[in-house]
């Protein structure tokens, strides 16, 4: 692997093909939704998220990131469903007109299990896959190079825009913009910030267009890639097996054989 591309992943799971890891994340997400109840998503998460994470030695980091990410949504789910579940009969707590119900709690726990599994799957994918690798692999498989470019450029533009926003804030503050007043004052400061950032980015489009055209961007057809992530027959078989589990489990669910998962 050329040095300017990066270093290979530290574990076997890291070194899997990006599309394999993506399929794993997507299938885990779908299974967490298909297999209802509480035990189902937890089982799915244990097998498809926690096990690979332990193998890749990022279990601690995964749990930390995934929990931090799902905390706001977890709080919302808990509050909304605990207190505002209309079919709830078994009242646990009463605060004025708002009642906390047992049914609401059960529904909330079910939703939380599902969200936790999905969050874990997504976090596992992004922690083990650099975006450049994914885009290169997609391009090798036939995604149009220009779409691959858009994907990669967007992922890079987000932090770049934020940095630019920080620079604009500093510049505007040097020109007397008030960024520490009350809410109303700060709201008025949004336009002098957003305006230059947005319009500056849009105005750059012209230059960047010419730069890309000069480098043969609009040439039709595939490009030769200097480096591609490795793939193997076994990984291909694994991907197909993973994809087939989804209709399998939908069938099992529809047939009612998953009732034991509660």
């Amino acid at each position: 692997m050329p040095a300017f591309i990066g270093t290979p992943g530290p574990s076997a799971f890291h070194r899997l093909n990006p599309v394999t890891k993506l399929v794993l994340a997507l299938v885990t997400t779908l299974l967490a939704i298909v297999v209802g109840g509480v035990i189902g998503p937890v089982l799915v998460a244990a097998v498809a998220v926690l096990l690979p994470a332990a193998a890749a030695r990022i279990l601690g980091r995964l749990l930390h990131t995934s929990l931090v990410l799902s905390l706001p949504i977890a709080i919302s789910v808990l509050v909304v469903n605990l207190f505002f579940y209309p079919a709830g009969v078994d009242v646990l707590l009463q605060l004025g007109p708002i009642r906390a119900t047992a049914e609401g709690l059960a529904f909330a726990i079910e939703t939380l299990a599902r969200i936790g599994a999905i969050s874990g799957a997504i976090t596992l994918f992004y922690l083990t896959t650099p975006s450049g690798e994914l885009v290169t692999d997609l391009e090798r498989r036939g995604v149009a190079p220009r779409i691959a470019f858009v994907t990669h450029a967007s992922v890079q533009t987000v932090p770049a825009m934020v940095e630019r926003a920080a620079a604009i804030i500093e510049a505007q503050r040097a020109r007397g913009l008030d960024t520490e007043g009350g809410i109303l004052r700060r709201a008025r400061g949004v336009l002098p910030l957003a305006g230059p950032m947005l319009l500056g980015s849009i105005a750059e489009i012209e230059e960047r267009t010419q730069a890309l055209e000069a480098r043969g961007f609009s040439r039709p057809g595939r490009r030769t890639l200097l480096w591609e992530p490795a793939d193997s027959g076994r990984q291909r078989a694994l991907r197909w097996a993973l994809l087939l589990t989804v209709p399998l489990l939908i069938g099992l669910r529809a047939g009612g054989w998953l009732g034991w998962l509660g």
Partner: protein
Amino acid sequence: MNGARWLRVMVGIGVGAIAGVALYLFAQEWVLALVVGAIVADVVYALLARWQTGDWAPLRFAAGLVVFAAVALGGIALVGDFGEASDVDPDTFINAKAANTWALILTVAMVAGAIVYFGLELLQTGRLASLASQFTTRTYLLMVIGIAVNIILGQTVAAALKIPIYLDSIGTILVGILAGPIAGALTGGLANVLWSYVIPPPFQYQPAAAFAITAVAIGVIAGLLGRAGFLRPRPDRSTGELLIGGLVTVVLVGAMAAAAVIGYQYIFETDVSLLPSTEGVEWYFVALAWLALALVVGAILGLFALLLLRRDLTAAYVVVAGVFTGVIAALISAPIAAGVFGGVTSSGTDFLVAAFRQAGLDVQAATTGQGLISDPIDKVTTFFTVYLILQAMANRFKARFPQGEQVLPVDEGAGA
């Protein structure tokens, strides 16, 4: 629009209106009458365009539209009365809920219409010029900016400001209007998928990928509206024109709201009253309801004030575009929010969902109700923002985009 085009539009609307009214008098089904009237109007316009200018493109679009409507109406008729919307069945994953099938039917219909449109174009001309022309190098770069703006603004609103709007479609709509429907659709879809799976925290928002189909629909609608010249500046209009424009806007928005309310009552079998009722309801809910009504009246007055102060008729077009896009987006995203997330996505819209649940509605009805309130407001704001961005861009720069001509003001002096 030049004189000949105006004539075609007027004749089309006229014939479509007659067809719609006739159907209503015959069958008493006003939804069907509305849809058929609109289709007939477009087909008549396309036929006239073919006859007068020899251009096949409007006819191909009309064909795609007919297929879209046929598949959508056929799907709705087949699925029947949408089943029991109010029973919460946690055992079967296959919830035959009303709104679930709405989103599926609309998606399938959209795909069918697109296949017919592009298929016809491929058969007639041997190329997909309308698709390829949307994707110039400039478009790709605008898409990059659009996706980045979607993610940054959407994340700021979802994570930091807990207000019941999303503001995650500014990029989608900007690309749609400047580059075309498919470019806008691709921007929306990619932005949502990347936002969930590829962008690292703190900008990652995991629920976003489930709503990718909504973003695709928004992109398509924005592209079509841009092609129709909705966001073309119309400055210095007479007061009469502005007042008529404001009135037409209020009527159209009122019609869409009425359609939404009636549809909501029919599908979810609940009663929706637009005026606050005081029986058996706590005083603070009644107060909130009156406040909401006051906001609506304020918005209408604000629209007229904006029209008369800026003397730009496009403000009215922007409002109509925003409400229309918002209603469609709400209908598509509500079942996703209900089915995948239980109605809660950790954004500011959750408290609206909670309020609906407190009123006794199930998850589907709650998310649909929340969507029908949040989405139109969000999309009107977004369309206004996009309009302001477009006005700040140089004419020469806008003209180089595929649909750039449609956002330039018509120069009366230079001739059509």
